[in-house]
């Protein structure tokens, strides 16, 4: 049945399908609307067009969603949707856009159109590639395959229908080849009546000799188990067998909370119908076969899957030494990341390390294109062709090796010496233009530069860390100095005490100097001044007001020792006598200094 002849609007999954002219008109209207939306909504930029199905295996009566993804393009004509025999539109079209900033810093906008489809009969369906004219070029999507079954032979047994929730693992087959990538499906079945689920972390698919990617969720659907209709939460991953022999998947254990309470329900206690269900799934057996040892192509490098080869080379009219870029695109399904550039003998060419880029078109990353760019340069004018290129892989579906051959490209090589290198205008007018991809690494440096001893970074060197405390200490010292200055400013007596102590220290040195010089007048003048300063500070009165009388009037009542009072008297009297009978001996003057020091210490200890 053709899509444009047999599609009809489905009211729901349970509604039976039939064909009528009214539904055909609906389909045409929907497709026209789809085209108009695409025409109006899409921005003009680089074009990329892909299609996908949310499942590739359904039961008769179930729906599958066909998604058209268009990345940055302005179509100039209505997309020609191909006929899909045996499939009908089963619901309204949904439309959405998403924007993201790519690694190149540019915005990428993807527009998706989703159409639910339903099958009217069982069998294998091939959805042909879609044709779309975008940005002046015609793009087509890859064909898709859909299997419609009458019943789910790989589904759980009917007695599982009594469970509230359970896990079920579906392997697409029981025998794989080593290196073959396949897609296991992990299904979480949830009983009817469950509004929502929570606390479910899909268990990692493990097993000896098995590598698997993380699970990717698909769209939920309904499926009958026993006499109950369950909601199925499907997840798929990409798995690859890396060891031969009979193998098993690991135990899968998880848990799920049915009807988990929301924020408000948590405040008032758990819901009555909240239920935590443990989920366990026993191991599943499968067998991994080695690749056939017969008829192995000579250039086979281990690729397993189903691929096509597309090779382009240019320019093909070059001078010797000119770079020729050979672009090898390997498209298909398999472990794309493990694909390597087909080996080739570049006799007569200088070859550079190739670059590789992988673009996947599905969520699991197993379908897409890997592009290699190999730069070579002809070293002789005798070279007439770029050698043929062959890529071999093992096709697990066909169970045999396949070899794809790209014939040789004719090549014209001119002598390179006399060729004038053309000036590329774009490079002079647009310095911001993207540079062409590098074809080799930058050559080694001729000079060693500044040599240094291997040492840990500064931040790990103790001396450097210790040095960082210097400004902190400087600030702390300055802070202490400021506090001290403030403190002295607020306490005049303390200030004077410190000043006098300083004067005494300087005065003692002065006395010693006068004694050494035998300068009696200066010595006694200094001694009197120092005595007045010290006594004035202790008695909190001006130094000029100090006379010998204060000893008996003020110091003795304050508790100054008798011997100290006597010593003070002696010093004052000696000073008075010296005015009239100067002492000539330097030793005599020097002998007074320690006595003065002793008295001063006594005075400083006296309570002010």
């Amino acid at each position, binding site marked *: 049945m053709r899509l444009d002849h047999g599609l009809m609007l489905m009211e729901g999954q349970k509604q039976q399908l039939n064909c009528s002219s009214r539904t055909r008109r609906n389909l045409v209207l929907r497709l026209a609307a789809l085209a108009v939306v695409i025409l109006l909504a899409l921005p003009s930029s680089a074009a990329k067009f892909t299609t996908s199905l949310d499942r590739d295996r359904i039961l008769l009566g179930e729906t599958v969603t066909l998604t058209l993804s268009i990345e940055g393009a302005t179509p100039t004509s209505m997309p020609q949707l191909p006929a899909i025999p045996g499939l009908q539109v089963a619901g309204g079209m949904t439309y959405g856009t998403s924007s993201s900033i790519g*690694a190149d810093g540019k915005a990428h906008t993807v527009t998706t159109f989703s159409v639910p489809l339903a099958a009217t009969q069982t069998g294998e369906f091939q959805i042909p590639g879609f044709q779309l004219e975008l940005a002046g070029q015609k793009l087509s999507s890859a064909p898709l395959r859909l299997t419609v079954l009458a019943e789910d032979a790989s589904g759980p047994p009917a007695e599982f229908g009594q469970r509230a929730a359970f896990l079920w693992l579906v392997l697409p087959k029981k025998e794989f080849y080593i290196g073959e990538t396949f897609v296991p499906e992990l299904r979480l079945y949830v009983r009817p009546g469950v509004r929502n689920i929570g606390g479910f972390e899909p268990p990692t698919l*493990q*097993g*000896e*000799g*098995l*590598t698997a*990617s*993380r699970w990717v969720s698909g769209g939920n659907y309904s499926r009958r188990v026993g006499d109950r209709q369950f909601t199925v939460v499907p997840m798929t991953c990409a798995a690859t067998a*890396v060891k031969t022999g009979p193998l098993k998947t*690991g135990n899968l254990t998880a848990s799920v909370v049915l009807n988990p309470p929301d924020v408000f329900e948590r405040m008032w206690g758990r819901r009555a119908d909240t239920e935590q269900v443990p989920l366990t799934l026993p191991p599943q057996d499968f067998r991994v076969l080695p690749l056939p040892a017969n008829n192995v192509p000579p250039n086979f490098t281990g690729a397993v899957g189903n691929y096509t080869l597309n090779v382009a080379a240019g320019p093909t009219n070059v001078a010797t030494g000119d770079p020729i870029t050979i672009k090898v695109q390997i498209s298909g399904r398999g472990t794309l*990341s*493990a*694909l*390597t550039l087909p080996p080739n003998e570049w006799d007569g060419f200088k070859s550079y*390390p*190739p*670059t*590789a*880029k992988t673009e996947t078109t599905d969520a699991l990353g197993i379908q897409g294109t890997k592009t290699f760019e190999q730069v070579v340069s002809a070293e002789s004018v005798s070279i007439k062709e770029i050698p043929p290129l062959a890529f071999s892989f093992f096709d697990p579906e066909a169970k045999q090796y396949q070899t794809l051959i790209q014939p040789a490209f004719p090549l014209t090589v001119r002598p390179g010496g006399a060729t004038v290198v053309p000036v590329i205008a774009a490079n002079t007018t647009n310095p911001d233009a993207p540079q062409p991809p*590098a074809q*080799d*690494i*930058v*050559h*080694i*440096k*001729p*000079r*060693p*530069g*500044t*040599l*240094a*001893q*291997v040492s840990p*970074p*500064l*931040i790990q060197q103790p001396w*450097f860390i210790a*040095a*960082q405390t*210097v*400004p*902190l200490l*400087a*600030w702390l*010292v*300055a*802070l202490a*100095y*400021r506090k001290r200055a403030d403190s002295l400013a607020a306490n005049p007596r303390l200030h004077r005490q410190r000043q006098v102590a300083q004067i005494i220290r300087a005065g003692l040195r002065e006395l010693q100097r006068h004694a050494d010089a035998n300068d009696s007048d200066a010595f006694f003048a200094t001694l009197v001044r120092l005595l007045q300063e010290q006594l004035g500070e202790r008695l909190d009165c001006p130094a000029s007001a100090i006379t010998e009388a204060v000893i008996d009037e003020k110091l003795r009542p304050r508790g100054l020792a008798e011997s100290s009072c006597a010593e003070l008297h002696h010093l004052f009297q000696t000073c008075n006598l010296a005015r009239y009978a100067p002492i000539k001996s330097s030793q005599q003057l020097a002998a007074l200094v320690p006595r003065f020091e002793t008295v001063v210490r006594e005075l400083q200890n006296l309570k002010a």
Partner: protein
Amino acid sequence: MIIRLKSFLPVLWLAVGTLATSVTAADTAQRFDTANKLYEERKFPEAAAAYEAMLTSGTTSPAVYFNLGNARFKSGEIGRAIVAYRQAAQLTPRDPDIKANVQFARNQVQGPTLRPSRLQRAFGLLSLNEWTGLTAGALWLTFLMLAVMQLRPVLRASLRNVTLIAGGVTLFLGVCLLATVQLNTGRDLAVVTARDVLIRNGPLDESQTSFTANDGAELRVLDRKDDWLQVTDGTRRVGWLKRSEVGTL
């Protein structure tokens, strides 16, 4: 006579030291040229060994690491080349040649690998020592201005705003320094240096394979146990591999 000799000792030491330094520098330059010659003769493994010997002797420069990376790359050792390039980039992060070659080498890596984030690229514009020097300079400036404000109260009003700005800059640079230490020092980064390394679910030879990493794949180290490293490729895939199968910066 002895006194006269003693007075000449410092000068003698200085002369001997200068002579030794110049001899060492000349010797290093000679070894560098020898290694370069091996490279030009396309004896890449021998050239790599010569560069390695220079580094082992304790002499380093970005150019030595860079040339070592080139020799490794030409020897087909992409992982070891990336390690060398990144070590060169740690010393001179803005060298366009290093950036070009590390990018070129990364483009050759197949399979899962970590790519530096925007944040890592931003903090990688300066080397760790440059970030450290800037932060230390700002710290010194801030505290010295605080000290001046204490010692010269009349300058407080005029210095307050400048000090606040210097403090803010210090804080910002300190955060950048910490982020650089966390993101770019390579302590938690491992580069696969062997072909088709099996990443296992546990730190045992008997553990099942989680995924495969190719030569040059950059992985983040999550944990260490004996001779094993727990790594992730930036997605949710986590596994263990032997230390001998990776290179670290």
